[in-house]
């Protein structure tokens, strides 16, 4: 991993993090996409150094490690699956209330809003 690559990983993670911390699901998905890119780059660069293409018989002698590549391939496809699914969630969310904002959980807010109030279940006389 070169410093530039590390820097790119840092940028991708930072930007991805910044995006997932939004309330708009689309932005979260964009962030997930960037984080995925960052992770893929991390897998590839931390596990291998640049070298010749790992295809035998092409004259390469200093083959780069093929294992991280295989792992990234798997990760890329899983990333595609996740992004596609999340997009359909965004789509469904839009058909419910016309936007893709991720709302806070209602029950949680209710409890946080009035901590003093206590439901009576008959414990008290």
């Amino acid at each position: 991993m070169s410093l530039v690559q590390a820097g790119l990983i840092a940028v991708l993670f930072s930007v991805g993090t910044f995006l997932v911390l939004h309330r708009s699901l689309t932005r979260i998905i964009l962030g997930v996409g960037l984080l995925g890119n960052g992770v893929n780059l991390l897998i590839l660069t931390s596990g291998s150094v640049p070298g010749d293409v790992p295809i035998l018989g092409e004259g390469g002698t200093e083959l780069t490690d093929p294992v991280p590549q295989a792992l990234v391939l798997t990760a890329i496809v899983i990333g595609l699956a996740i992004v596609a699914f999340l997009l359909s969630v965004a789509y469904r969310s839009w058909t419910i209330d016309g936007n893709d904002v991720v709302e806070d959980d209602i029950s949680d807010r209710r409890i946080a809003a009035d901590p003093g109030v206590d439901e009576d279940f008959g414990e008290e006389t």
Partner: protein
Amino acid sequence: MTGGLALFVAAPLAGTALCYVFARNTALQRAVAVTVTLGVTVASVALLVHVDTVGPVTTSMGGWPDAISITFVADRLAALMLVVGNVMMFAVLVYAIGQGARDERSPWYAPAYLALVAGVSGAFLAGDLFNLFVCFEILLMASYVLLTLEGNDDQIRSGTTYVVLNVVESLVLVTGVALVFATTGTLSMAELPDRLAALPDGVALGLSLLLLIAFGLKAAVFPLFSWLPDSYPAAPSPVSAVFAGLLTKVGVYAILRTQTQWFPDTNRTLLLVVAAATMVVGVLGAIAQADIKRILSFHIVSQIGYMIAGIALGGVAAVAAVVFYVVHHIPVKTSLFLVDGVVEQDEGTSQLDRLSGLARRSGLLAVLFLVPALSLAGLPPFSGFVGKLGIVTVGLDQGEWWIVAVALTVSILTLVSMMKIWTGAFWGAAPERQRVGVLRHHPLMAAVTWFVVALTIGVALFAGPIYSFAERTADDLRPGPAATTGTGAP
């Protein structure tokens, strides 16, 4: 058994494939699902017996040498988890068929459920770190589909939280896995302990923490738990029953393996603090809720704390206690959610303020709730007591008094909140409104609930054999001879 282990994943996957092919015939899908889950359940019992009597089984995919291929390893722990997991999955599948809700008739239910079976089994058996990640992805994606099956308002909102957080978990996990490969050059879990031990302290610490965060989020430990109580209650009861009983335990299983075998004694204090916080925050959350499903969901969190505490304490006795705790907890938690499903089916709600006098309507249902509820609170003679006793004994033995004090306090608070359900929903006058004739739930639902509750009682009755099995399991998990010092085992 050269290639047999692969079938625990391949068979459900073939089932998933068939369900896609039969997408227009849910009856056929259902038949496939029942056949496959029953088959793997029976097979996993056979495997357990084999592993316990003969020894661990290893299968390498593709027939390559173990070090370079993906392996499945069935040691005692994996086989045990496989049995408990598959039995629960099968039971809940039958329950769901009995419930006959809209979800179960969805053409996506059966394939996703089978994939969940495959993913969970794969996660238990995985002998390769990256493959473990892939199996996690299978079970996660299946759970995403199951959680949003109906696609209604509630499910989408809570499903979003669930999906996004678990996606981030996946990213953390794969980062951890990648860095493990980057530092050790292998993904074979059999080779990892030695190679990880050779790493500089800081790197090993970072890797252990990354994996801990990933698995801890799955297991819902403090401070990574908040998504769970928000998302599980929105799922249909059979789905949340499986999620509650099983999915968090996959995380615990992974933590158990990684922390005891790869990073022994690394994060003891951290884990103890995390465990205590998890117990307390979970149980307080449960007390604060007014809905059965939400109370039960918070208890998942709280109970995970006990397991983490056992893992933190370390040593054969503690690990045995954790193994037993996991085995006890899965059916207990599942059965509570199943009871909740019956209640919801009959009464149309799980809100405590809208329920009353259930015990008068059905004494049997009351028993079905009370047994696992008391077990959850750790009261004897139920299985929860044995589990809790194991952890308490080890804690006192090792002189970690404060964690024992926390554990016992939390257990009385657990009792408080379970009795809140009992006094709120089961006691009291039966409601004024018209009783809808006979109870509406399908006999299959009641039968399965009975079966699972009977299992929990069975776990209590046969706690002795199960516990000694757990000790043998813990013995298997003992880290290499170099690391055994310092963990006191009586």
